[in-house]
């Protein structure tokens, strides 16, 4: 039996996903997620005992290179596309009281 997506779980998922779904949209999202979780539960039928999880097909090794600046200072070009800026910096709402 798949995990039932109750109000509390839904709230936690929205918090993690940084989304605020309300009313109908929230109910539809819940129903779809429930359907999907019930479907993926099929994986429970697959015996994975003793199998190591596989993230990278070609293995994951650290890749090093010299930390050299190759692109120059693009501060103005980057700030130009920000939704709000102030004094040459990104402008966001107050974060500490």
């Amino acid at each position, binding site marked *: 039996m798949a*995990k039932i*997506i109750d109000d509390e*779980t839904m709230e*936690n*998922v*929205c918090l*993690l*996903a*940084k*989304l*605020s*779904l309300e009313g109908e949209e929230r109910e539809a*999202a819940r129903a*779809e*997620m429930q*359907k*999907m*979780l019930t*479907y*993926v*539960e*099929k*994986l*429970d039928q*697959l015996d*994975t005992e003793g*199998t*190591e*999880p*596989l*993230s*990278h*097909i*070609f293995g994951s090794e650290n*890749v090093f*290179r010299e930390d050299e600046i190759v*692109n120059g200072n*693009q501060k103005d*070009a*980057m700030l130009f*596309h*920000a*939704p*709000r800026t102030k004094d040459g910096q*990104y402008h*966001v*709402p*107050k*974060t500490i009281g």
Partner: protein
Amino acid sequence: MELSQMTALELSRNIRERKISVSDGVESVFAQIRKKEKKIHAYLDLFEEDAYKRAEQVQKGIAQGIYTGPLAGVPIAVKDNICIKGKKTTCASRILENFIPTYQAEVIDRLEQAGMILIGKTNMDEFAMGSTTETSAFGVTTNPWNTAHVPGGSSGGSCAAVAAGEAYMALGSDTGGSIRQPSAFCGVTGIKPTYGTVSRYGLVAYASSLDQIGPVGKNTEDCAALLQVIAGHDQKDSTSLRRELPKFGLTSGEDLKGMKFGVPEEYMAEGMEEGVRNTFLASLKLLEELGADVEFFSMKTTEYVIPAYYIIASAEASSNLERFDGVKYGFRAAEYKGLYDMYRKTRTQGFGKEVKRRIMLGSFVLSSGYYDAYYLKALKAKAIIKKEFDQAFEKYDVILAPVAPHTAPKLGESLKDPLAMYLGDIYTVAVNLCALPAISLPGGLDGRGLPVGFQMIGPCFGENTLIRAASAFENARGTFPSAEKGGIKI
């Protein structure tokens, strides 16, 4: 021959032989765009003025011996999740509606070095999440064979552009079939290369362990030539492989004697449309006539590939899409109370339904208490799926499959039931989970006159085996009609 009917290699040969100019090729593309784009809507942005300027530059460069490659002067379309410096890159999402990157993808540098002409950015499913191009925030793209149908997705704009003659070739990206499935639906050819073969630098990430950029073209030879241009190690992408590259290409007219092809019998289970089944069986027969050995075998993990794929892809998507928060670029909600509320409102208003659905599923499967049961379980399933493919490739040179269980659905039919839409990815997602190369090429038409794709899957680094088999298949099949000749008139 009408210019827009030429393949990319034919066009560039004519340019090199000075029978036509680079601008002629560009003009043929914009003539088709003027004629068809209103109905097809393959593009989100067009660079007409730049393209003509660039054409002059390339013309000179060819004369001076700067551009000597086989694709010099060829106009190409680029999927809108690949960054071009100074050009809007929206991923067909409201949240990136006005994002103009200050850098560009490695593949774009390579196209420019090859003397290719950028025509525009193509429509796609939002953040490449979807199978129809209908999740785009900027309107649907239609199928050039029949505009009542979808082009497939997520690289639907790229494939529709090539099919409609609105580009000679295009770049797409493939995370779970996003090059191969729309190629099949639009009657064009597409390659998903071995993971790590093409740099992902400048490709807006959806699921980083699965994403790969690849070519879309009118035939295998064109795709092989484009793959040659874009493949190669790039130190800006830490997953880019230091792979010794072969010359991607073919040996036309070669038969397939001694080649062994395997077909998973589970792929023939019910749920496949009759037109797809008939074309697939006829394609197998054609390969046998070419001297290949074709046999069925059992691929027991088939039923687990979609659950494993959607858990892994959604998990990676939820993590990758965290960066869209309304601070540094793109859209920000107009009203909010404090920082966290700004993130939430921006994302809730900026992302479409399908994207939100996957971010939520991904957040859930990675969350404390469920990580082992879902995400880790999916990674274990992936290991088992990969092992089964490894074993199959000990026996077979190539695995054959349909591309999708159906041809292009009608517009507006697929998004009503997301799970049903996901199930249509049954033949494509395992390739991404296992990092394998695969090619989708037209096999035939179904009873309604819609293209049916044929898929060849190779072992890692087996692109040339696929190119050889696909070329032999093409030669035997004969030239596939273009949408203009074979489809419903627009």
